[in-house]
């Protein structure tokens, strides 16, 4: 196994969906790097391709979707070349993902305990081989996981079904299931969107906490820049299937380079803006079918020029900092 600093490397990922209207380029040439132990924030609106990118990493893209090209290397191993069986082993054990909607993501017919045990049974190699000892170990570990995510009296709640828990508790349970096999990478897809602020704060702190304790990497997919600002080391902003800007969180938020990032930051209603007009980005996300090879933000960009009507590559604009805008001059990084 390589001792590479990068846990996950995605190169030129293209995921498309074949629809009756044409080929939808949901993810169009996306590069992602997740370093060991870091928390990467992925920000974008619906249709930006942020979720599809990581469903692709998980090998969860189903027909009519398919990965057209690109490499996904996890610890140096190209996941796109693995068989379904090999992928299944990695999924869950090494990489796990939590879904936005815990109620539909959990199986309503199985108790929380059963779902946890299933995951442990399939992926945890440290358990006794078989028999009562294994069952007891699985149960103990399940209780431990529920306790880890802050569920009160975990012992008695193992036998309950998902619907018997509140929204915040269900989200915790899903995180517990995702964390049970001790993955190296946790992909959290909008983990708090469905939750109230006070609960949201609890769940995000929980994820940060566990990350620090277990030393895993976290990808936090969200539409909320505030969440990114508080919890992520680096951030990647996506728009219409492409990455438009990435860099350290502080940098990107304090000094956004791409007009879309600026627009997004300007769109957030804030107390400090009271009485002043907010400047929303006008218009809507473009149709991802048959896009011309131009800047994708062109139709909505307040700073567009004719030069934007050509395809734009990501360019380096500082150490560890890239953005996709023709107005930026490429900076040579030594």
């Amino acid at each position, binding site marked *: 196994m390589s001792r590479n600093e990068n846990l996950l490397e995605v190169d030129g990922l293209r995921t498309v969906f074949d629809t009756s209207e044409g080929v*939808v380029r949901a993810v169009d040439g996306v590069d992602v790097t997740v370093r060991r132990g870091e928390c990467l924030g992925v920000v974008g609106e619906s249709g930006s391709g942020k979720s599809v990118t990581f469903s692709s990493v998980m090998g969860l893209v189903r027909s009519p979707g398919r990965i057209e090209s690109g490499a996904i290397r996890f610890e140096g191993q190209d996941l796109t070349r693995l068989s379904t069986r090999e992928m299944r082993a990695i999924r869950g054990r090494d990489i796990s993902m939590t879904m936005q909607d815990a109620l539909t993501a959990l199986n309503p017919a199985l108790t929380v305990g059963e779902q946890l045990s299933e995951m442990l049974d399939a992926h945890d190699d440290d358990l006794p081989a078989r028999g009562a000892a294994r069952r007891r170990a699985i149960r103990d570990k399940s209780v431990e996981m529920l306790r880890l995510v802050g569920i009160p009296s975990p012992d008695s709640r193992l036998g309950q079904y998902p619907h018997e828990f509140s929204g915040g508790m269900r989200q915790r349970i899903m995180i517990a299931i995702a964390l049970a096999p001790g993955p190296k990478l946790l992909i959290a897809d909008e983990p708090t969107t469905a939750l109230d602020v006070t609960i949201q704060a609890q769940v995000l702190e929980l994820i940060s906490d566990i990350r620090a304790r277990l030393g895993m990497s976290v990808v936090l997919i969200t539409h909320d820049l505030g969440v990114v600002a508080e919890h992520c080391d680096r951030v990647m902003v996506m728009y219409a299937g492409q990455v438009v800007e990435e860099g350290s969180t502080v940098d990107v938020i304090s000094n956004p380079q791409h007009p879309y990032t600026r627009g997004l930051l300007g769109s957030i209603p804030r107390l400090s803006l009271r009485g002043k007009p907010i400047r929303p980005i006008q218009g809507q996300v473009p149709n991802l079918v048959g896009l011309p090879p131009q800047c994708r933000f062109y139709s909505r960009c307040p700073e567009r020029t004719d030069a934007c009507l050509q395809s734009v590559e990501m360019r380096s604009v500082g150490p560890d900092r890239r953005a996709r805008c023709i107005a930026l001059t490429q900076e040579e990084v030594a």
Partner: protein
Amino acid sequence: MTSAALNSAPVAAASGAGQTIFRRNLRQFASNRLAMASVGIVVLFVLLAIFAPFIAPHDPNETDLFRRLQPPAWQTGGEWAYLLGCDALGRDILSRIIYGSRISIFIGAAVIFVATTVGIAAGLAAGYFRGWVDVAISRLVDILLSFPYLIFAIGLMAMMGPGLVNIILALAYKEWVIPCRVVRGETLATRELEYVEAARALGASSGHIMVKEILPNILSPVIVVSTIRIAHVIILEASLSFLGLGVQPPTASWGSMVADGRAHILGAWWVSTFPGLAILVLVLAINVASQGLRDAFDPRFQE
């Protein structure tokens, strides 16, 4: 306007409603070969029923004692003018089957029409108003459901006497329960949706809400269920006619034709068999077609 679909591009297939969904469902239905073939058979029967006087080779009620129990054309003693042979009164079986399709299809359609109309009204009222209206309708439904269908219909027929209208009433009496239950359930779910609340907030009356806001959105499952039930009703009508409680002779009905042939089943198998086959084929075709319809249109049967 570059709208809608794009925004949620990858999930577009899963969301949305209305027109395009209808078209997509229709496409899905059309791609189901077996269902399409069944639709063809049903259409064929309907055409037979409508154009019976032009298609039937003989008058279905014309008796000819010289042709008593004449076998089908391909057996010795048969003749091609009487393709499927003749019954005990020397009537042409093919012509009677063709005319009999009128009874089966008409009664099937009429019963389902009456039952669906009543069922929709009752189901909407029960699901929308809830409370005592719902209790009253639901209890009635429970009571009706606890009677065996055929015995119930026989009892009614015995009370009302035979006749086309009476058969329709006797069958619709209980049949409305089926669409009623479907409509009630769908209404209960739909009335809680925000667009129904929006209509109330705008000052819409209960009538408007039931007919304009709720009904159009629950119609497809009801239609699907109703088509499946047509097959049931056709069998029930045949059963009543078989028992002599249906359409009265000499009018040709598949059920009574089967009954007519009972006495001769060993010697003249064709008298009962062909009308029986007609029932089988039509009912099977309706079932397969409506199942295709259900797979295509009822969201609960879609992935």
